């Protein structure tokens, strides 16, 4: 088993990047070079012909590492301030989905008759895009809301947890149904083990690897959901809408929301879109590497080989 001794670089780089994300999320606002409401609309630049007036957006420079947006907000500052909303919401939502959906899935799988296995009870909800449900709930209350960013974030997080539970439930349930046929479960059951004993002592340890991988995947799914809503101007933590002309701002500068807010800068001043996009992809990449690393570590034990 020389392969097993090789360093699992995916797991390590995933852990390092995730640790970095946590660091940014916690200490980001303290490290930010400017306040989050700082605006630099115009500057005087000394050139050969004397001083020249320049207006935002400013491209990346030593003064603004990631440049500024159209209104002179420093992009690095916005990203550092928004990180906590992105990272913690995604993790808490994924955790909620896993705990509620997982517990229901274990019990559902243990009590379910085997014949109906594979049928999806949540067919209707499953076929309906989750983002539509969240979209219509948030549409009336998210834009120019009187609720505070925290209230809106908590509300939307609860909603995103709820729409994700059926998916987790059916995964855990089908795995439980598969596992409970194994001999060790039958043995434990015939020795008098009750349902919760079987789940805690036999099924849960067996599925721990799957659960962790599922957790990381749910984080990524949550990030995607937040981002899709952001594309339609429903930013996590509230949207500020200005009317003439119609412009949407994110209250929290949450990363997926920034991507949605800046989505128009494809043709010019691309750095405005590019840096939030990079930050968001970095978040997804770190969780993805983590999940792959965990998956490979788990899979090393059971292996089948093809004949041709």
């Amino acid at each position, binding site marked *: 088993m020389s392969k097993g001794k090789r360093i699992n670089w995916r797991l390590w780089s995933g852990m390092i990047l995730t640790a970095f994300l946590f660091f940014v999320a916690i200490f980001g606002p303290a490290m930010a070079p400017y306040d989050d409401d700082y605006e630099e609309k115009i500057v005087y630049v000394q050139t050969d012909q004397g001083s020249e007036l320049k207006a935002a957006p400013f491209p990346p420079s030593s003064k603004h590492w990631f440049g500024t947006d159209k209104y002179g907000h420093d992009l690095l500052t916005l990203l550092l301030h928004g990180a906590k909303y992105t990272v913690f919401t995604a993790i808490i939502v994924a955790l909620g989905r896993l705990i509620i959906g997982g517990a229901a899935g274990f019990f559902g799988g243990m009590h379910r008759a085997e014949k109906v296995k594979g049928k999806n009870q949540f067919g209707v909800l499953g076929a309906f895009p989750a983002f539509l449900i969240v979209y219509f709930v948030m549409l009336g209350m998210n834009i120019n809301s009187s609720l505070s960013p925290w209230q809106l974030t908590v509300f939307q997080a609860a909603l995103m947890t709820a729409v994700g539970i059926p998916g987790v439930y059916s995964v855990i349930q089908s795995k439980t149904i598969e596992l409970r046929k194994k001999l060790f479960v039958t043995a434990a059951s015939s020795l008098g083990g009750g349902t919760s004993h079987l789940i805690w002592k036999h099924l849960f340890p067996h599925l721990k690897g799957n659960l962790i991988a599922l957790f990381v995947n749910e984080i990524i799914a949550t990030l995607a959901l937040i981002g899709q809503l952001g594309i339609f101007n429903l930013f996590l933590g509230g949207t500020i809408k200005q009317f003439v002309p119609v412009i949407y701002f994110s209250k929290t500068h949450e990363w997926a929301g920034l991507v949605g807010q800046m989505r128009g800068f494809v043709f010019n001043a691309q750095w405005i879109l590019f840096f939030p*996009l990079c930050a968001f992809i970095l978040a997804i990449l770190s969780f993805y590497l983590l999940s792959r690393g965990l998956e490979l570590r788990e899979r090393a034990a059971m292996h089948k080989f093809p*004949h041709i």
Partner: protein
Amino acid sequence: MKLLFTLCSIIILIFILAALPMTLHDDSRSTKDNEFRFTPRAGLEAVKDYFIGLKSGETFHYRQGSDREPSFFRDIGSYLMSSYFYLVVSGLIAVVVSLIIGAWQAKSKQEWAKDMLGFLGVIPDFILVLLLQLAVVSVYQSTGIHVAKVASSSTDNPAILLPIITLSVIPVIYLIRTLSEQTFEVLTEDYILTAKSKGISRLSIYIQHVFRNIIPSLKADLHKIAAIMMGNLFIVEYLYNTRGVTGLMFIEGDYQYNLIVNGLLTLVILYLFFYWSMRLFVFGLERIFAYE
């Protein structure tokens, strides 16, 4: 019977969902009272008006701009066709490509290929769209070559390549994963060993035994694929500005309950059309690979 039940519950869900923005309301800028309000009455009114308006046909008119009230049925046919076109073309590409790559990838021990595929698979649709758009623009700005249209500028000039790439990439990744797992399972079966020991060529084994055994799992995945693609359709049509059914839902201006409900109901019809078209295609595949 089950289909009917599912359809009914989806329709009820649509009526309720579309009424939510009026039921849960908080918009301090437009109503002046700064508080969160829960008004089920407003939602119920909207549902009632929808059914009352059915008789006079008012339900099927919507506001466009400040003074026009076109009929819903005037344009919906072309919207439906446009959305259907993107979905079916991307769906067919997705199935064919993933069958080929899935079979080829099943035995691959190259973890980096799986890394790449997996990462592409977790990238959300809107990130993919924005990256593609940025790439096309930067290629154009640095070399002057116009690779593809970044977004539709008008109805006669629709973006085709990028929307189809985006719509097919996501199901392709999903299908490659499940199909290559399935192919792997099939390849470990004893009948493959038997066929191999009989001296049957690799290609024949794939055509006669492997493909016909993974088609059922493809069939089982069709609903999931269709659902994923319908979800992506919202983002794709919005960001590429193609004229489709989902575009009706994001018209600037006041919230129009009737329009949203009609749009969502049209999407259900689109889903059914799309699903059955894909089903027909898989049926064709069965005739090729799994005939008796």
